[in-house]
């Protein structure tokens, strides 16, 4: 097994300030970036704050930016870098920093609460649900999401424009709206909730300019843009930009 010494720059600090610190650290065969961060903790910086959990790409906790790209530390193998390269690890740059590599991801939990939940059909009890595989395929793809929030982090709508955070739910939660709207038994419309309209009006779908960074960074390989956001935009068009519907609603508003 071969090992070598790698150069790392790791952002350390908190909301008051901080910066990149240099480290030299041993790297062994088959290791991932998270292993190196752990070795730093065990040997050089016992109080280096980092969030992690399963270390197998299933929980989505260890999100960070490695050489400027949003990634999971546990799924970034050291072998993708050359031995000469200095590897820079920073916290997610779209969210407020807490300490070192840990950020405050509360934005995402706030947005999650704003999406109305699944509405069970009134006439079906537990055990009576019948759904065909082809009808659940689409929503199942979106439910692969591990909520690592890399898509939320990379999306320029909020990453580059803090003020958009109130109006824009972000790719993860627009995908959640799409998931529910495509759920074969969601009874939202029966309860008077039109997810196609609210996607645009309340969750800020219009801010998305489909530049696909969310899809690029998704560690689960979910086609967020092509399969969730664009179909959702098309569904919003059905409701809002069909000229006949639009004209009709204008006339009705005038007369009422």
């Amino acid at each position, binding site marked *: 097994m071969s090992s070598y010494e790698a150069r790392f720059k790791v952002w350390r600090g908190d909301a008051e300030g901080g910066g990149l610190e240099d480290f030299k650290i041993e790297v062994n065969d088959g290791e991932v970036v998270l292993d190196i961060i752990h070795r730093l903790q065990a040997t050089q910086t016992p109080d280096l704050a980092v969030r992690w959990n399963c270390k197998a790409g299933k929980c989505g906790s260890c999100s960070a930016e490695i050489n400027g790209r949003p990634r999971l530390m546990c799924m970034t193998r050291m072998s993708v870098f050359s031995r000469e390269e200095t590897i820079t690890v920073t916290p997610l740059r779209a969210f407020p920093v807490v300490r070192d590599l840990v950020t405050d991801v509360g934005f995402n939990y706030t947005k999650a609460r704003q999406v109305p939940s699944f509405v069970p059909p009134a006439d079906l009890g537990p055990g009576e649900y019948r759904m065909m595989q082809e009808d659940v395929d689409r929503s199942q793809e979106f439910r692969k999401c591990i909520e690592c929030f890399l898509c939320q982090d990379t999306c320029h709508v909020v990453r580059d424009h803090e003020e958009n955070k109130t109006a824009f739910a972000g790719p993860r939660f627009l995908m959640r709206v799409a998931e529910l709207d495509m759920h074969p038994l969601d009874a939202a419309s029966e309860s008077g909730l039109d997810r196609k309209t609210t996607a645009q009006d309340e969750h800020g779908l219009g801010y998305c300019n489909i530049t696909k960074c969310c899809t690029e960074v998704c560690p689960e390989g979910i086609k967020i843009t092509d399969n969730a956001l664009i179909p959702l935009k*098309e*569904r919003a068009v059905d409701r809002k930009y069909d000229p006949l519907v639009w004209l009709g609603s204008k006339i009705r508003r005038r007369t009422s």
Partner: protein
Amino acid sequence: MATGTEPELNSGGVRTPTRAAIAAPHLRTDRWWLQPAATAGGLLAFIVYSTWRAFANTDYYAAPYVSPFYSPCLAENCEPMRAGPNWEIFGGWWGLSPALLILIFPLGFRLTCYYYRKAYYRGFWASPPACAVAEPHKKYTGETRFPLILQNIHRYFFYAAILVAGILTYDTVLAFRDEHYEWGHMGLGTLVFLVNIVLIWAYTLSCHSCRHIVGGQLKHFSKHPVRYRMWQWVGKLNARHMLLAWASLVSVALADFYVYLVASGAFDDPRLF
């Protein structure tokens, strides 16, 4: 807040004070600029070429071939094409190049296309230039306001694009004649047209709006097996939408250029049979 910033635009982006203090707009070490630069270059080249050809108003017909830029020809000042796509609904008052009348439709289709939007937002507007690279704009409202809210009319351009593709198919059929309008012949141009029309159709049908209309809008695929099959098929094409967008863009320009070469006499269309 420090002096010199604009307090009315709370747009610190990655430099917002609550976020990790890193001055650099990005820390990417790869050649992230390559893709937007190449995209912008490619699009610019097409714009320059197509503007020249659209305004030129010459060398667009060499029997049996009509340039896809000029088909259908909707004004009286069009060159007469026997059995060709002449359709003089604009009459005699139109004095400009007849290409301008029809190019609006494919142009609008491509301009509002979900792939091209990504391409030019990134390549021309730098919004964003690449993933996790800070964009230079202070303010961003996306497609929520005029004019970009008009992107939502993509599907109507899709309908128009179907018609245009139908006419180009007709032109391709006409290309199975020789220069004396005899049927059952083929030249190199016919092949060029064939490749072009296949790519045009593939691009048009791979459109996200098309995917929505044929089946994506349904809640229960299981109740519409035929539309489900169509949706799956369009989905497969749709996964290659970017590739088809570029391939058809190049092929349509090449088809036009081929007609130009033949019509201007610079090149003689080799007949196969």
